[in-house]
């Protein structure tokens, strides 16, 4: 049984004549302990699919199960709670809160879950330490490089120990070396039991880190490839 299983997912946006189908019966699978890439041209529905798998969006049709939980059966409040407890996010633009320093940014998921701020911050500093940002805990995002910001975002994604990590173009704003470091970190993460990660990317340099790659086109997953993958642009 896969960690993430989606079947027949459809999703359209807009109304009347402006209504556009983005997903047209997409099937998707990500296995526990694996780093699954989701690739395809812009507009093919990757972001919409991971939004549904990350419990942010409800499909029009189809079912999505994440670690055994049928997302379609959850109320809005339970979806929010599920997201907060089970899913970690890494975004292309980092999406750090500019007014908070690195430690507070990393601590946000814990604080949202009701952890005492001081304890949450202590855990965040430990996490940043593991990510090589020991001296940057008190820095604000504007005082950090892109690579440092992405590591803070990773700390935020992992601090509450989510089972599923969803990454949207995690290396797009990073240089090649930093991108490799980030991907290596993610691959190590999912090797721990009970975890999975889905990475949406256009960055073919990162393909060697994937355990499987799902290709999308026109709102469906057309096929899935297994290793070995070549680094197209070393």
């Amino acid at each position, binding site marked *: 049984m896969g960690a993430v299983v989606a079947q027949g997912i459809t999703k359209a946006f807009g109304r009347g004549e402006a209504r556009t189908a983005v997903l047209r019966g997409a099937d998707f699978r990500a296995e526990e302990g694996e780093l699954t890439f989701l690739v395809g041209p812009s507009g093919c529905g990757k*972001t*919409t699919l*991971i*939004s549904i798998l*990350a419990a*942010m*969006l409800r499909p029009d049709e189809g079912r999505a199960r994440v*670690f055994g*939980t049928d997302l379609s059966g959850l109320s809005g*409040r*339970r979806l*929010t*709670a*599920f*997201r*907060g*407890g*089970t899913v970690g*996010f890494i*975004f*292309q*633009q980092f*999406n750090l*809160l*500019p*007014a*908070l320093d690195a430690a*507070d940014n990393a601590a*946000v*998921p814990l*604080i*949202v*879950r*009701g*952890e*005492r*701020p001081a304890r*949450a911050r202590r855990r965040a500093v430990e996490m940043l330490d*593991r990510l090589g940002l020991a001296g940057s805990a008190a820095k*604000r995002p504007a005082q950090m490089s892109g690579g440092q910001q992405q590591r803070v975002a990773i700390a*935020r994604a*992992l601090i*509450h*120990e*989510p*089972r599923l990590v969803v990454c*949207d173009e995690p290396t797009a704003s990073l240089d090649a070396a930093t991108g490799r470091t980030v991907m290596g970190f993610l691959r*190590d*993460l999912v090797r*721990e*039991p*009970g*975890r999975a990660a889905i990475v949406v990317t256009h960055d073919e340099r990162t393909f060697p880190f994937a355990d499987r790659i799902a290709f999308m086109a026109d709102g469906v997953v057309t096929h899935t490839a297994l290793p070995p993958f070549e680094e197209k642009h070393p």
Partner: protein
Amino acid sequence: MPRRPRAGQGRACRRGAPVLGVGLKMLFGDPVKLLGLVAGIAFSTLLMTQQGGFFVGLISRSAAVIGEAGGVDVWVMDPLTETVESPSPLRETDVLRVRGVPGVAAAEPFLLGTGSLLTAKGETTAVAMIGVDDGSFLGLTPRFVAGSPDDLRRPDAVALDQLAFANLWPGEPIEPGRLVEINGRRAVIAALTDVTPGFGAPATAYGRRSEVAALLGTPQPTSFVLVRAAAGEDPAALASRIEARTGLRALTAEGFTDATIGFILTSTGIAFSFGVVIALGAVVGILVAGLTFSLFVNENLRQFAVLKAVGLSNGRLALMVLAQALTVAAIGYSIGLWLASAFFDAVDQPLSDLKGFFLPWQVAALVAGATVVIIALAALSSLWRVLRLDPATVFRG
């Protein structure tokens, strides 16, 4: 690295305080927008409290004579009299009739009129002339700053308020002894008082009733009968008894103050005029705070989406936005109130034309309520965007 995976949904937690801390950090982390928000609320608060204080001060002046009259329990007047500064004259026999009412310890005539004061240098001013009973001085202000009530027993003597003195003789020592003309008759400023100016004239002069009647040239020297109640007598009950026995209108000092202010409020455009200015203050506050807060929320929508994405519910997000709004309101209100208080402290000086103007706590409380409404409207107008926000927005570039 994380030690072990956690199963299923995250633990339910209803504690919102830590999240409010994140919201406040977001607020204080953007000092420029915070300044704009606070300035809008502070300006609105200042405008509303200052105009509210002005309004109360001005209205209070309409009844200042009543407040200055010491030892008076009941004011008796002609039934046609509406305010203290526009009395219909009484007959001399009315004083005797009031004295005959049980429970009256003392009843004395009181004269109030308006004269024109002329200095030797040719300066003129309207002056409220108050004549108290020659023997008892009932109704005389106790607030003398130079000279004493006994000085009023001298020929042609009046006691002028020191603010009027300072305006008539700017820069000169404030002391008794100057000669003036009141309605073309000689008068001596024998003493100086610290009374609050009334509504109708910028100067106030006290004197013996016989002296003031002569200065005003009035044939009817009784405007009111001032009553001191017997020991243990309830002033309100005594007022009712006087009305029943004499057919005159009788009010306690508090009742007459309220009646005078009520008449001014309902019969003049003052309330409307100040009400418009105060309402404009509120509207400006709503617009400035609303637009700035809306801008603040708009520019932070992505951050709110991130918080939603990591599991923050709509309810706690709404609380966070409201906490941000209330924090802004508290800071802005405090600054505006402090500015207004400083203003009234500065102007409420013995020699200031705005003497007696102050900031009543009731005005401060009302403005606090208005400020909460203003910022709540501003927050609510922005909140719906936050609540409808799609957390998947965070995946869009």
